[in-house]
């Protein structure tokens, strides 16, 4: 079983896709931020796979359109 904590700090009432928060992996004790649902899903997918945390951050940033 995998355990994560997702904290939502900002929601856009007009656009439910826009959410800002922090994603914590309990077992790996890592913490990443997200600013939309795509980047949250990417973090979740990457943490569940065997890739390391760096891949997860890269994937999330790409989903957000950041370099």
């Amino acid at each position, binding site marked *: 079983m995998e355990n994560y904590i997702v904290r939502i700090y900002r929601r856009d009432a007009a656009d439910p896709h826009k959410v800002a928060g922090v994603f914590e992996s309990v077992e790996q004790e890592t913490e990443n*931020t997200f600013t939309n649902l795509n980047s949250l899903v990417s973090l979740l997918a990457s943490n569940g796979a065997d890739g390391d945390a760096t891949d997860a951050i890269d994937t999330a940033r790409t989903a957000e359109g950041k370099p």
Partner: protein
Amino acid sequence: MGVNLESHNLRRLYQRQPVSGWSRAPERATRDHPVRIYTLGRFSIQLHGVAASSKHARQHRPTELLQALIALGGRDVSVEVLSQALWPDADGDLAKNTFDVTLHRLRRLFGVKDLLLLCDHRLTLNSDLAWVDVWSFERLVNHAERLLPRAGDPVVTRQLARVGERLVTLYQGNFLEREGSNAWSLKLRERLRSKLLRHLLDNGEVWERLGEWDPAIRLYRKGLEIDPLIEALYQRLMICYRESGQRGDALAVFQRCREVLARQFHIAPSPKTLDLYSSLKS
């Protein structure tokens, strides 16, 4: 094994205390507990007023069983649930043997009769003999929630102030935060953290309504120590500083909010925060 004795003791305990919730008045008679257990921010044990020796710290498995018991409610916790949480890879017999041995070691470690009661495959930490900071915290925060609707009454307001101070003193950090991250500790950790943050915001608003800005400011600042990403706390602080004539401090709070949001999320403050900022300039 003393199952019958334990069943008798547990029945006696329940006769004195209803099963639903902790019935003691907030903070009543904590001094007479032979065992005091601190789990908020750090894990430490006092036996008869004296800090437990390092032998307790070295007993990893018994200590972990005690921590999991507290995390899972402290009373009537199923042995199966505890075993599954602590030794998920152990099968039925192995899990049972491990539990029995670990409980025996835990009891021997404390040497306090009836401290841990086992009845019908359920384990209870006897609240007549053990004071636990999280139990005290939850009683107090629930008490504060009941006081909040009557906060206009000066007597209630003073009570609320005392309860708020005590809560902040009790909350030395997140539940078992130095013990690493265990799945079984998360639910209680998050619930307590969330309850404190909610209390700080609600209690702060009471002081704001009374025009008492300093206590409100202290509460909001404590909230930001716990979680510096909560924008509502920055907003409340800005209002308190503005209304108490401390415009420079209000501007500093806005700057900090803007920096934190930019650094963490690459986002700007919300329209509500920007409106507050505008009100500072006018």
